[in-house]
């Protein structure tokens, strides 16, 4: 089934219902990484799974109005740069990656200083990055004929012209 078209209405409606929950779940997993199992990476992959679900079930034509590759690139880079910026902000109080926020009280969402912020940055980075990679992979269409087809596959004379 070509991904441009998307899938049946049943799949689409289910996706409509669950994709929001998946996004919320991914964000929750990331933001509570310092309290229990989870973290930015797992959350980001869950977000990416939601993205993949939308792309697969609605097809590229519809999903491209929601999310495009350039958006993913920029969000990906912004997440990574945000994480690095958190590390650089440590210079304010002593050095690279020094936790510059108060550690707070255990088991509270606002505890653990930069850890929740770092998880958030990684969530954005991994989620956007993987959705972007998935879009690129699913958008890929063979462009030219394969080497085997035009008979130049074997022998050294088939070297490409440079």
């Amino acid at each position, binding site marked *: 089934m070509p991904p441009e078209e998307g899938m049946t209405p049943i799949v689409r409606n289910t996706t409509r219902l669950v994709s929001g929950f998946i996004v919320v779940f991914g964000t929750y997993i990331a933001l509570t990484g310092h309290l229990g199992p*989870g973290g930015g990476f797992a959350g980001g992959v869950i977000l990416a799974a939601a993205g993949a679900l939308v792309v697969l079930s609605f097809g590229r034509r519809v999903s491209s109005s929601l999310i495009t590759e350039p958006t993913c690139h920029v969000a990906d880079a912004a997440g990574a740069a945000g994480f690095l910026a958190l590390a650089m902000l440590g210079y304010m109080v002593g050095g690279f990656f020094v936790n510059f926020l108060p550690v707070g009280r255990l088991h509270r969402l606002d505890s653990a200083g930069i*850890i929740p912020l770092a998880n958030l940055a990684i969530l954005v980075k991994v989620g956007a990055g993987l959705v972007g990679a998935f879009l690129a992979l699913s958008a890929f269409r063979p462009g030219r004929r394969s080497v085997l087809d035009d008979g130049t596959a074997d022998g050294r004379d088939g070297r490409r012209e440079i």
Partner: protein
Amino acid sequence: MELLIVTLIGLMLIAALAAVEARDLLSSVICLGAAGFSLSVIDLLVGAPDLALTQVVVEVVALVLLIRVVVTRRDTSSSAPRDALRTGAVLLAGGVLLVAAAFSVGVFAAGKAGVIPPFGQPLLAGKGPVAPGVSKDYLGKAADETGAANVVTAVLLDYRAYDTLGEATVIFASIIGTYAILRHVGRREAPADAPAGGAKGG
């Protein structure tokens, strides 16, 4: 408990063998998925819920990617190994590795120094010839020093956050690399006659 883990690793081994030897690529990928999900169950059993969660979601995404590769593409290769020589060489090397591993885990000299501590008794438990390592400090101090209840997260994003920067960069590099690999046209046939410095392709 140990029996359960042995069974699960055995299952992984069987799934891995099936994945390697399957005739059909789709079955191969699905068997790989079975191995990956078994791994996440093992993670859960040995007290690593973070890993179990991450392994499951990564497995799902990796399977989606791999299935998309194999499901629409015609495959014409036979399932026979490349040649007997390679197979023989790898089996020999594998045998050597297994013997080395047997020595290393102390099959021939149980309880002596210089072998990997027995399963369930890491240095952390304080029974080996060497003092418990750095993890004792992580467990004892993480709550006070970092404020994170989850010590794995404390290690990952505070004590060893620099590694995590590396980890984020790895995934960044691979995604950028994926874009680069998937460009239809790598280089133009004729040299572009754009002025120096301004020739950035779209």
